[in-house]
């Protein structure tokens, strides 16, 4: 996946106004199957997988015992005892090893790294359904958000999932790698009349940031807990023990000392990943993501601040290459589509 095809702004706006096409085949797929697969998934995944019907997916975390992130994941329930876990590309072997090791106590369940069996093509934007519908007999309108079905797209056996990483409506289509080129081309051709653009990593980043979706490796990692990342909603608080549960329950009771916030720059400049945050003269935190948003035409970002400085409206400074630049905490997401 290149950084850009025709330009980040053009690609970003295509997704917000029409649709964009992403080759996200770099993502990893780990399958867990066996009589005790549900118990296995419940143990390694923070969210409550027992709430998933077959054909449904959920966002979740793969956590350390401290309640911090090994990775963020999507859990698909393929069958009563068959799950597909989609993981980030950064460390697929590490995730696979972690999962394999930690599902052992669950009993009859085994994990397979199936990443080489899947290519993944995503179409996102208000025109996504119409464009994709021209290539499939599956009734796409009947697929609800975070549900998936199996069916043919452009003659290719696929799994079609109504998910994405842009804040728009859209679909992610899992296909065998050998069919990926043909499907990509078919989707590009089908989208031509709607001026659908192929999109790169640059637009993927600006789009997900406007939608306030966290990026693993930047906005969260093994040093950041689920609650600090303000993702308490991906924790199955009522389910039985899972990795990280004890730490998170304790943290929930005592409260976190820092938390992720969304912010807008009040002065010119882009606060980028790794820039220091100051409250007064004190270094108080760090920027984890930042960009100039093509749609809102503002400089926005996310970062971690001490909890007492996280209320919307609170102002602070970002050190942009030696210059203290004013910023203000704002509610997230920065962008929410009209339904």
């Amino acid at each position, binding site marked *: 996946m290149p950084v*850009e095809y025709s*330009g980040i702004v053009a690609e970003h706006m295509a997704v917000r106004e029409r649709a964009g096409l992403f080759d996200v085949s770099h993502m990893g797929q780990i399958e867990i199957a066996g009589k005790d697969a549900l118990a296995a998934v419940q143990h390694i995944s923070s969210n409550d997988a027992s709430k998933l019907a077959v054909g449904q997916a959920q966002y979740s975390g793969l956590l350390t015992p401290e309640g911090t992130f090994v990775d963020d994941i999507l859990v698909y329930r393929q069958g009563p005892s068959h799950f597909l876990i989609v993981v980030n590309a950064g460390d697929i072997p590490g995730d696979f090893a972690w999962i394999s090791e930690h599902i052992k106590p669950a009993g009859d369940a085994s994990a397979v790294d199936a990443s080489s069996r899947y290519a993944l093509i995503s179409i996102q934007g208000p025109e996504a359904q119409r464009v994709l519908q021209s290539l499939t007999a599956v009734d796409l309108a009947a697929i609800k958000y975070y549900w998936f079905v199996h069916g043919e797209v452009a003659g290719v056996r696929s799994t079609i999932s109504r998910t994405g990483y842009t804040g728009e409506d859209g679909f992610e289509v899992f296909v065998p790698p050998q069919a990926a080129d043909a499907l990509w081309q078919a989707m590009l051709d089908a989208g031509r009349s709607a001026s659908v653009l192929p999109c790169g990593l*640059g637009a993927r980043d600006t789009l997900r940031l406007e939608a306030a979706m966290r990026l693993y490796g930047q906005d969260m990692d093994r040093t950041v807990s689920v609650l600090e990342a303000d993702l308490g909603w991906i924790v199955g608080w009522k389910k039985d023990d899972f990795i990280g549960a004890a730490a998170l329950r304790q943290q929930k009771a005592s409260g976190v000392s820092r938390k992720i916030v969304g912010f807008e720059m009040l002065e*010119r400049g*882009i606060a*980028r990943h790794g820039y220091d945050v100051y409250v007064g003269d004190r270094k108080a935190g760090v920027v984890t993501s930042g*960009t*100039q948003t*093509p749609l809102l035409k503002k400089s926005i970002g996310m970062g971690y601040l001490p909890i007492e400085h996280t209320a919307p409206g609170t102002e602070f400074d970002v050190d942009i290459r030696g210059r203290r630049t004013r910023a203000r905490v704002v509610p997230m997401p920065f962008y929410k589509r009209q339904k």
Partner: protein
Amino acid sequence: MASYPAGYKYTKDHEWIELSGDRGKVGITDYAQAQLGDVVYVELPEVGATLKQGQSFGTIESVKAVSELYSPVTGEVVEVNGALKDKPESINATPHESWMVVIRLTQPSEASALLDATQYQALIK
């Protein structure tokens, strides 16, 4: 793709300078803007700033990245293109017309050692 004016001189850092007497208008090349992608901010020096050849005179920031701007020559900044603050995207649209500063050269001999359009185009091939 924009063409590279034959009357300009170019640097290996992808700036151009259009000389006229002891003054030169400075901008970045079409190649540079294409590498940067959508430009969102330009930070330029104040009038009166003195620069050495190769010294940073500002920064240019795109959605993708931030880069330094390097002076092609030694001299003093005598004019700054304030219009770029509000329309930084014009650098993408018309890179060879979107001048950033005018520099009064104090060592004019430096200019003759800069690349001409043919040499520059060979460099970016």
